[in-house]
């Protein structure tokens, strides 16, 4: 029978096929890789300790500090005593249970979804979990990667498995090639705009088509990262030569004859011709324009030259109501042009767009001008290694000369658990993944864009079409 990539990974990880109930297949799934950070792990370790249980496979777990750290200082207490306690708790727990940790200041430290792939920890066909919804990022490698809650983190600690129900499958095919100036971020925002913020709920998405195959690994990670913003459990891209070239020689990737065995297996990880999907979506790359979100969920997105929609443009009463609330919160009027909208903050970074290619794309725009008066623009590399590479290429100089701040790696203003936080009424062009109310600060307004679009907004002081800067 023709099977999908998802079917193959599912089948290869079943420790115990529990039953096929009316509601679908269920089973106990083996977990190959578990990434952890300071925010969602302390209660899981505490639960384990309470029952006197042990971490089953500490060697499959890697920890980093990313969410609640400062981007100005390497001191653990730079963001106050509660942040410090959380970071210290992670360090203590890792030590106690024999888990490798990349703490603040370590060369391998970074946002969990940036550092994992760059170390070669994520490989095709793996099952990967983390107490973090953007674990979907790692699907770029053809790994089944998904976010879990803290109870499940504890379950994986103790058993290296998870009980799972088989999700539905969705194929998202992006045909043709991308126009100049259009990025992976625009692809994924356009997809979410098309299917909606909950459009892929209960599904695992497989992205395919010429426009996807042509993407670099970093761009594929940007696409898969935001699968959760469409409601999907995970996003997958079948591994190919681009994937193998990226992985070869990375620290934790297989070596020597193990590498050959791995590649032979990885080459089998594709959806068979004729495999059936529950849902199929198609897009033409040629139709995608630079995307900007206007509302308070990532599905509320338009092309940079489209007018802000009116509630009456939506037929579904719930969408209408959401549009109404979003316009109010975002202080926007129907029909307004985005290029008329002043921004006073720009954030370039996060697990969506904090990689070296993102830094290069933003720098290419930044070097064409100066940050507009009244705009605070910060660039936060996704990891120590991204920072080092950017500095080797002197991108930091370009940013600083143009008036951007160049910070230390971390999640930063993507969620503002540190002091990188917006004030009431601020309007931000952000390369992160969530434009929810209050996400970057109480009463602050977030517009999601690509790194190049964010840099262009910084120079212009309002949203601008990045294609005018090529």
């Amino acid at each position, binding site marked *: 029978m023709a099977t999908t990539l998802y079917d193959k990974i599912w089948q290869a990880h079943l*420790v115990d096929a*529990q039953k096929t*109930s*009316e*509601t679908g297949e*269920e089973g*106990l799934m*083996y977990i*190959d890789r578990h990434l952890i950070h300071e*925010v*969602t792990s302390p*209660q899981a370790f*505490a639960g384990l300790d309470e029952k006197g*249980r042990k971490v*089953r*496979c500490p*060697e*499959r777990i890697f920890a980093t500090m990313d969410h*609640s750290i400062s981007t100005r200082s390497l001191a653990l207490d730079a963001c106050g005593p*509660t942040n410090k*306690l*959380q970071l210290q*708790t992670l360090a203590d727990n890792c030590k106690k249970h024999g888990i490798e940790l990349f703490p603040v200041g370590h060369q391998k430290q970074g946002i969990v979804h940036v550092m994992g792939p760059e170390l070669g920890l994520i490989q095709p066909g793996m099952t990967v979990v983390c*107490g*973090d*919804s953007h674990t979907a990022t790692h699907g770029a490698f053809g790994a089944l990667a998904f*976010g*879990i*809650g*803290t*109870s499940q983190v504890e*379950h994986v600690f*103790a*058993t*290296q*498995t998870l*009980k799972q*129900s088989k*999700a539905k499958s969705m194929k998202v095919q992006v045909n043709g090639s991308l126009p100049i100036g259009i990025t992976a971020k625009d692809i994924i925002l356009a997809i979410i705009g098309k299917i909606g*913020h*909950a459009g892929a*709920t209960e599904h695992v998405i497989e992205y395919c088509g010429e426009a996807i195959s042509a993407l670099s690994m970093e761009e594929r990670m940007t696409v898969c990262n935001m699968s959760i913003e469409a*409601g999907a459990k995970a996003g997958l891209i079948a591994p190919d030569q681009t994937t193998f070239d990226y992985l070869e020689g990375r620290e934790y990737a*297989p070596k020597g004859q*193990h*590498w050959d*065995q*791995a590649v032979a297996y990885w080459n089998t990880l594709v959806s068979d011709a004729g495999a059936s999907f529950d849902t199929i979506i198609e897009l033409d790359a040629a139709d995608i324009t630079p995307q900007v979100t206007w509302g308070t*969920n990532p599905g509320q997105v338009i092309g940079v030259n489209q007018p802000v929609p009116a509630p009456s443009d939506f037929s579904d009463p*719930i969408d209408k*109501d959401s549009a109404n609330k979003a316009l109010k919160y975002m202080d926007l009027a129907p029909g307004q042009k985005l290029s008329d909208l002043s921004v006073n903050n720009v954030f370039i970074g996060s697990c969506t767009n904090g990689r070296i290619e993102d830094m290069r794309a933003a720098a290419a725009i930044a070097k064409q001008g100066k940050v507009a008066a009244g705009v605070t623009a910060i660039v936060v590399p996704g990891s120590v290694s991204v920072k080092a590479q950017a500095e080797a290429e002197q991108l930091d100089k370009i940013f600083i000369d143009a008036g951007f701040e160049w910070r230390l790696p971390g999640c930063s203003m993507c*969620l*503002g*658990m540190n002091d990188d936080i917006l004030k009431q009424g601020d309007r931000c062009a952000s390369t992160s993944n*969530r434009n*929810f*109310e*209050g*996400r970057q600060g*109480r009463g602050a307004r977030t517009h999601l864009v690509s790194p190049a679009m964010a840099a262009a907004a910084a120079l212009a002081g309002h949203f601008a079409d990045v294609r005018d800067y090529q």
Partner: protein
Amino acid sequence: MTTGINIHTGSAMPLNQANVDTDQIIPKQFLTAVTKSGYGKHLFHDWRYLDQHEQVPNPDFVLNKPQYQGASVLLTRENFGCGSSREHAPWSLDDYGFKVVIGTSFADIFYGNCINNQLLPVQLTSSQMDQLFDLVENDASAQITVNLEQQNVSVGELSFTFDIAEQHKTNLLKGLDAIGQTLELNDKITEFENNLPEWQKA
């Protein structure tokens, strides 16, 4: 482990809104704690308080309306709990006093997190939700009974059945220790690990 839930009766709070994300349920500034308790007072912080120090309640927000105090059932709309995987979301709903959340649909991770915390998520159709909202918005004291065993929600003359996966139902009814159950399969897990090719072994 907890003892499980079956029948719950209580009054309801109507949160008549779609796409309520976990950043709204419990914002990031409360995620630095390392324990599971004490989040209830911060539930829906941005909507619930007019100031960031939680001194001035927002009188327009449903959680602050006198008639809905003491509610233990939360009514909502589609895609509740979307966004961040933070389990702090069900911890704060539970800590506040909610036992059941009834909505049109739930985000996947949030749904699983509810099950793991003995918070019962009930999915009804949007027209059934319309009827529940109507009723509760007119009569805040209406007592809603949710019967998990029979998969039924009833209040006054209304009675609806709902679907729930067998595995989830059992876990909620019995309050099972999921880890303890899986540990009974230890030999199978070890066998699986032993059968992995050398390069996949940790």
